């Protein structure tokens, strides 16, 4: 690990160190309670009957035999779910419509994706519930499945939702599968292309890729006779689940309590409701708590991967290689309901560059597959696969090194982001320079590998903006000077530690003396979700705010002890001092012991609504690959990721985010896809055939933490969780092109496709 910084650092005692995470011991002992680990008195188990068809009218559902089966407590179908009218909901990382959400959770009259829930059963145990599903009779009338952009957008296409009203550049459109067509435009790209010294245009196809969290979804619900609904779930968004459940089930929001269990990975895929409302309605019917755990096949079939699609990009440069214009046409397949992160894709596709003339068209297209979900920097890796591949190919054509191109064209402070805002101070160029100066970049690549294998090197950059939004953190001061910190963001990768460390920094305590707890929605103020790279950044600010309030209150208490005016008490480096009587001083821990006699407990809540984004985090990745030209297999042999963290609160977990995103991006680049039959049925819905990287598929992943402080955070912190998945796929594509002298325009760049590209090169076609 390397850290680069461009300024005399703010002095920190805790931030920037590497304490052991607070929840770590429970997790290495196997004691941490994940969703499926919950046990409650009287607990029964639920299972879901799912549509085997991607598109079918449900003519009849007869659950009578299942309901009568031994050990069955309740059966529900679409008829048991409340009907919702159209209403737009902000989900934090995406916007969805309440009616679509309701229909997605349980089909009514029509199944629109393979795996669409049609009925659910609660029974004495899991296997009894699964066996009872076999007794439910469903008559389907299969309809033609729309599973590609071509099918969905063709004139006369089968329309999936008769009542979908598309927004096509502000015009209402009916009878369409295109839910939205947006455009961002400034300058005159067409005229600029005319003047450009070089112009290149390419079309890229990107596979649907699943978040691939190892923990399947699970939810437990108890609908009490007093009307209160308690839900224990594995979610990134406990408060989002609370409000969505209230909306879907027609309950007041305060009737719902959501307890977030430990969460076994999410990456954006555990934000939407899936099992929670089904468990709730089953519980109401059965008058018992109901636990539901999804099987892996259903996770693939029926929860949201990131969208696949097609992206056409065009870029023109002048004789020096400076970009004069760029356009993009982004078409994403949203799945069975609208919402495929096309707006983020429009931001991200050219965000790394100064582009004086620009046009970005984006299409959100409905198809008969499960509704896509946010997946780490939603929509952006797909777009960047196109733009960063194009840049590399353009550089080849104009004889310019990609490094020089990036440094020349990098967007910096004051430049306009494609969607309008002006960049504040950002670390785009700094990341590129960090890569340029890295041992990896400075070392020559030996181009021949063993046994005739071919090596190549590629690089790519990436951007993700992140969000701020609402967070609440409460700090309680205990007599012994240890503080408990109560927070509402599920800890998906070390955020208990990173939030606690920010409070510890203010309180002058070691990280270990702040005890963080993630609590239910009744026990803490509102918190937006653990997503959007916001948790360390925004909830950290709530923790800082709470800690400052604690310090202010404790100053008052010390003033009472010292019989002086509160203005005379100062707090520095963890010590309260009386300015007028310098020998009067208490360390935080001593001071904490005096609270009982000076007015009682000190408990303070910091609540923030962080307006600014996470500051925007840029990254640059460099990768070496080795390709076997006889089999088409690509092995990543060296990897370096540089990214701007603003200020790394816990560098180990920052590195972990860089590495994890890189690994997911490499998986997407090389093997991950939804392989479906022509009826839209996914055939590789298992960890066996949905080939995520194993330990043996990756090398050590070197990281460089760049620290360009974020003015929106007291410590300069940026949200960093997502950017790392943006550059890997194009970096790998560029490395493969460098290795084999032929370019691939499609993910995954699996062995068969590499062989096809090599064959095309031999036939003189060079890809296209």
């Amino acid at each position, binding site marked *: 690990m390397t850290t680069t910084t461009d300024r005399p650092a703010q002095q920190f005692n805790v931030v920037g160190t590497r304490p052991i995470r607070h929840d770590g011991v429970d997790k290495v*002992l196997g004691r941490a309670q994940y969703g499926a*680990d919950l046990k409650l008195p009287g607990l029964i188990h639920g299972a879901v009957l799912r549509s085997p068809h991607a598109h079918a009218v449900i003519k009849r559902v007869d659950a009578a035999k299942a309901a009568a089966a031994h050990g069955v407590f309740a059966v529900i179908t679409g008829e048991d779910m409340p009907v919702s009218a159209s209403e737009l909901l902000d989900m934090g990382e995406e916007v969805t419509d309440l009616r679509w959400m309701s229909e997605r959770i349980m089909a009514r009259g029509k199944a629109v994706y393979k795996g669409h829930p049609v009925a659910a059963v609660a029974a004495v145990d899991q296997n009894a519930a699964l066996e009872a599903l076999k007794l439910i009779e469903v008559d389907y009338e299969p309809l033609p499945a729309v599973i590609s952009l071509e099918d969905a957008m063709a004139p006369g296409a089968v329309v999936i939702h008769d009542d979908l009203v598309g927004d096509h550049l502000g015009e209402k459109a009916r009878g369409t599968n295109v839910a939205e067509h947006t455009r961002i435009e400034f300058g005159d790209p067409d005229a600029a292309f005319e003047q450009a010294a070089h112009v290149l245009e390419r079309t890229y196809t990107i596979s649907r890729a699943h978040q691939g969290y190892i923990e399947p979804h699970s939810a437990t619900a108890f609908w009490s006779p007093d009307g209160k609904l308690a839900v224990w779930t594995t979610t990134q968004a406990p408060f989002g689940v609370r409000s969505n459940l209230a909306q879907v089930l027609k309950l007041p929001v305060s009737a719902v309590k959501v307890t977030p269990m430990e969460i*076994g990975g*999410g990456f954006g895929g555990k934000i939407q409701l899936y099992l929670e409302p089904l468990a709730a309605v089953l519980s109401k019917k059965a008058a018992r708590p109901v636990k539901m755990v999804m099987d892996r096949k259903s996770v693939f079939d029926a929860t949201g991967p990131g969208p696949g699609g097609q992206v056409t990009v065009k870029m023109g440069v002048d004789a020096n290689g400076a970009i004069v214009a760029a356009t993009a046409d982004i078409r994403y397949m949203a799945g069975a309901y609208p919402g495929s992160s096309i707006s983020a894709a429009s931001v991200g596709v050219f965000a790394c560059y100064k582009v004086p003339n620009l046009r970005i068209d984006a299409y959100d297209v409905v198809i008969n597959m499960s509704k896509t979900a946010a997946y780490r920097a939603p929509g952006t890796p797909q777009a960047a696969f196109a733009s960063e591949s194009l840049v590399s190919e353009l550089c080849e054509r104009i004889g310019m090194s990609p490094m020089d191109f990036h440094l020349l064209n990098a967007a910096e402070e004051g430049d306009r982001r494609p969607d309008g805002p002006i960049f504040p101070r950002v670390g785009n160029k700094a990341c590129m320079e960090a890569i340029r100066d890295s041992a990896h970049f400075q070392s020559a690549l030996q181009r021949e590998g063993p046994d005739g294998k071919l090596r190549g090197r590629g690089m790519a950059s990436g951007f993700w903006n992140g969000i701020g939004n609402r967070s609440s953190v409460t700090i309680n001061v205990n007599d012994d000077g240890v503080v408990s910190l109560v927070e509402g963001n599920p800890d998906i990768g070390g955020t208990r530690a990173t939030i606690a460390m920010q409070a510890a920094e203010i309180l002058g305590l070691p990280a270990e003396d702040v005890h963080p707890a993630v609590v239910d929605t009744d026990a803490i103020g509102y918190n937006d979700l653990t997503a959007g790279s916001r948790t360390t950044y925004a909830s950290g600010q709530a923790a800082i705010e709470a800690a400052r309030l604690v310090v202010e209150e404790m100053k008052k208490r010390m003033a009472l002890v010292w019989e002086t005016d509160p203005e005379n008490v100062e707090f520095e480096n963890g010590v309260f001092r009386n300015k007028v009587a310098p020998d009067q001083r208490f360390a935080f821990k001593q001071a904490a012991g005096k609270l009982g006699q000076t007015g009682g407990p000190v408990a303070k809540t910091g609540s923030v609504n962080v307006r600014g984004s996470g500051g925007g985090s840029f990254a640059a990745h460099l990768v070496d690959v080795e390709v076997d030209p006889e089999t088409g297999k690509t092995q990543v042999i060296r990897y370096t990721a540089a990214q701007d963290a603003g200020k790394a609160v816990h560098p180990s977990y920052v590195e972990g985010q860089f590495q994890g995103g890189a690994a997911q991006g490499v998986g997407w680049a090389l093997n991950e896809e939804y392989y479906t039959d022509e009826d839209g049925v996914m055939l590789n819905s298992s960890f066996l055939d949905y080939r995520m990287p*194993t330990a043996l598929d990756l090398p*050590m992943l070197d990281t460089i933490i760049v620290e360009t402080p974020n003015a929106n955070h007291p410590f300069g912190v940026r949200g960093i969780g997502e950017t790392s998945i943006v550059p890997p796929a194009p970096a790998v594509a560029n490395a493969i092109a460098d290795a084999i002298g032929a370019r691939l325009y499609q993910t995954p760049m699996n062995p068969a496709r590499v062989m096809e590209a090599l064959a095309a090169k031999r036939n003189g076609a060079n890809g296209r």
Partner: protein
Amino acid sequence: MTQQEAPVRKITVACDVNGYPAEFLAAPHQSLLEALREAMGLTGTKEGCNDGNCGACTVALDGRIVDSCLVLAAEADGKRVDTIEGMAPPNGLHPLQQAFLEEAALQCGICTPGFLVAAKALLEREPEPDEHRIRLWLAGNLCRCTGYDKIVRAVQRASSEMSKPAPAGGA
């Protein structure tokens, strides 16, 4: 000449779990994973795929690591089962557990018990495996958060901790 079968009844399984005798009832179709989690309350062993492709349910069965989702509970009768719950010594952590914490080798932590049980079996057989051997041994355990870098480092760290000669004399 198929005769009428009696309804399938639960069977008693007696085994050694983490060094202690254990006896539980299991349906014949139940996996060892289900029995550990449901009958014995040992939920540290996780289910990720239920088809032997993620390793989250790794336990040691008579000293060999297995995917407990692909073992019938009934097969454990008379055998020794070691799970994550039995890994730490009293009032402490196993060097691998400590190394996973020090190296930040877990993010969400769902795969961690499986990795720890698998890595322990490796170091017991081969105290000083090289990086490739570690990666090969752990290839049956999927992690989606870390990219494996810090997991490999943690195993290397534990390996070197465990290979150190025990401190001479008592304190």
